[in-house]
């Protein structure tokens, strides 16, 4: 995985990522320019006006024009950042959702400290859920009496998506506030209990990536890590088929094969499984 991550921004594999990255670069360019100019001024002022014999302070000074111009320029630049970058990018990300018919629809239900990924199955309809049905083998409380639920697939911490296809994720939480973050997708959204918040993205590259929780959600916040896999359309469908529940026993969610058996990162020796 080394090639994906380094000391700067992680690689970007989403269609909307470049817009966000561009804004980050532009802002940092402005910051650098301002800071360097400003620091240079400071150094010059400190050397030139140090206290020394024969040098006295000046009481009255002409009003400086340059700083006012710079301040106005900064203000204008901020307007440009807002109107030219932030507003349109945010509008694109938040309001311009892909056509649901052409997109992959997924529900993700966060809980301490797991991401439950709920695919609607072949019928494209999510089965009914009920919080009173939630159990160890039925993490989202799928109602097996609902015919639409029969082909639903619920995975734990395993999120597979096809490449070059828009994905709409409906985010909700069972317990506390989490934050659904896929750094390589430039996607981050707080997951608020009591609400369902949609996000969308489209992957441009295949590979194995990760979902992080970005909001403190308790003891296991640090290990609320999901596996995010971008595959070709074919690979995705064969994976989805292999995860289908066995026909005779409906609504028996195959959690066993879906469970991440061991995290590939070196396990910490904290010895806490809270």
């Amino acid at each position, binding site marked *: 995985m080394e090639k994906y*991550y*380094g*000391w700067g921004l992680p690689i970007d594999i989403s269609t909307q990522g470049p*817009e966000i990255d561009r*804004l980050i670069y532009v*802002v940092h360019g402005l*910051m650098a320019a301002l800071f360097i100019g400003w620091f240079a*001024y*400071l150094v010059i002022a400190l050397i030139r*006006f*140090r206290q020394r014999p024969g040098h*006295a*302070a000046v*009481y009255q*000074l002409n009003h400086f024009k340059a700083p006012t111009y710079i*301040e106005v320029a*900064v*203000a204008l630049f*901020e*307007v440009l*950042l*807002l109107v030219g*970058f*932030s507003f349109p*990018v*945010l509008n694109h990300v*938040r309001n311009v959702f892909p056509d649901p018919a052409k997109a992959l629809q997924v529900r993700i239900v966060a*809980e*301490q400290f797991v991401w439950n990924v709920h695919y609607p199955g072949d019928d494209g309809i999510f089965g009914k859920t009920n*919080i*009173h049905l939630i159990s*160890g083998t039925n993490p989202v*409380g799928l109602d097996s009496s609902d015919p639409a639920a029969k082909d639903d697939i619920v995975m734990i911490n395993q999120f597979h998506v096809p490449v070059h296809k828009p994905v709409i994720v409906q985010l909700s939480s069972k*317990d*506390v*506030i989490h*934050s659904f*973050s896929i*750094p*390589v997708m*430039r996607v*981050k*959204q*707080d997951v*608020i*209990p*009591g609400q369902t918040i949609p996000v969308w993205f489209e992957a441009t590259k295949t590979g194995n990536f*990760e979902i992080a*929780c*970005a909001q*403190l959600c*308790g*003891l296991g*916040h*640090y*290990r609320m890590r999901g596996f995010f896999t971008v595959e070709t359309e074919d690979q995705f469908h064969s994976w989805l088929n292999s995860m289908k529940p066995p026909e005779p026993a409906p609504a028996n969610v195959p959690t066993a094969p879906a469970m991440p058996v061991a995290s590939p*990162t*070196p396990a910490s*020796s*904290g010895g806490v499984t809270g």
Partner: protein
Amino acid sequence: MSHDDHSEKLPFWRKYIFSLDHKVIGVQYAVTGLLFLLFGFSLMMLIRWQLAYPGKPMPFLGQFFHPKTMIGGIMLPEFYNQLGAMHGTIMVFLGVVPLAVGGFGNYVVPLQIGAPDMAFPKLNMMSYWSYFLGGVVMFSSFFLPEGSAQSGWTSYAPLSVIASSGQTWWLFGMVLLITSSLLGSANFITTIVQLRADGLSFFRLPFFVWAQFVTSFLLLLAFPPLEAAGVLQLMDRLAGTSFFLPSGLVVAGRVLERSGGGNPLLWQHLFWFLAHPEVYVLILPAMGIVAEVLATNTRKPIYGYKAMVYSVIFLGFMSFIVWAHHMFLTGMGTKMSAFFQITTMIISIPSIVILTALALSLWGGSIRFNTPTLFAIAFLPMFGIGGLTGLPLGLAASDIHLHDTYYVIGHFHYVVAPGTLFALFAGVYHWYPKVTGRKMSEFLGKLHFWPSLVFINCVFMPMFLMGLAGVSRRLWDPTQYAHAQAVQPLNVFISFSAWFLGLAQIPFILNFFGSLLWGKKVDRNPWEATTLEWSALSPPPHGNFNHPPVVYRGPYEYSVPGQKHDFWPQDMKEKN
């Protein structure tokens, strides 16, 4: 308080413990605040071990901790979360605010306005003891069976509602701290409005007093909503209500037996309605101190005094309508986020004006490079970095990637650590002679300044890189994530820098206590400054001034042409 009481006749406990004198209370605040800063810093030292070497037993120190916090020297996640939550709470509410507002405000404001004391001395004392009690409650919560609060200093519901009993103590502690701040701020406003010396009009006030004045309004009007939120969360925790709990929660596999119907975002709104103005509560007094120190040590008036005053008022006003930029990712609509992005960009303008004015004050001066000036000058670029890195966070689009990462940590620490804290250090070195009658050692001061400057940048600068890499905050073990593993060497570097930063504070501690005994004795006005506090004796007696001072001119009349001396005190009628 009877009318004929004189401090000389008072018993020890009235004079130094339950004192009504603003100077004693100011010192009490400052010393307590400094001790809490040290304590909060120590918590971070522990956290830094866990972050540099996740899950490795802590050498030597580890064996002294209770098994509920560390097992075999290995820090448990619950203890890590406690340290994180309490570091934030202690630094903000028990360290910086009490030192900046309670300490410097109490000691310096009445002196600078030529008043004998605060308007309500008894209220002042109650304010300190309420703060002290709040501190005791916060501190002792570490010794609860389940430890202290562990839901972050922001205490987001529902996590905080279902958290262990430490959170209840946190809330009670906060109620006491809020009470203290409310009493203090009403006192400051009344004092500054009513008790200014004759001739001291508002536009002759030292900038520090202006900063405290605006700060007091922020505290007065922004804290009560948090108190309301605190009461609601206490009800949620103790009376079983569901203000912050929506219906249908399932915690640890069990349906939560609550009525539901609440809203978790309500807490965030009420919290940030306070907590954003609170950021300015942390910054404004620091800016005030820097203005005082720079004017004195450049030997010239500060540049654009009136523009600065208008900016600080505007800043205070705007700080109430930017709060939701902390909540860009909570699913708010784009129109709403556009509004808060605009206000956030607007609020950056007065900050830039003040910072620019302070920087331009150097131009044409005759700058003395003593310790307070070094800290005050360092404040400028450090606060500048803090402010600039706020830009990508204030733009909701770039915030998507940077929100809740180490970038945020780096940003606000640049504002409050090398920013505010450096200004506070400048204030300590600047006013120490007034409080004690002795100067602090310049040698130790510089030994404190230079390593602090270097190491504090080594601590916070790499955090921006970690943030850009997407590393989340508050991770007990960052190496769980591949993207965080890539920057893990930075964590080791930060930790060592932080420990060295700790060592760099030893000269300050030695200097602070040692100078009480060995510092060079000084007269009233060791820095040859103009504001009123320097007309009083060092230390000022009970009642501050022998005669109520009368003010003839503005606060920073340095190097006035045609004068023999390069400073012209505010209360001097004749030429100087």
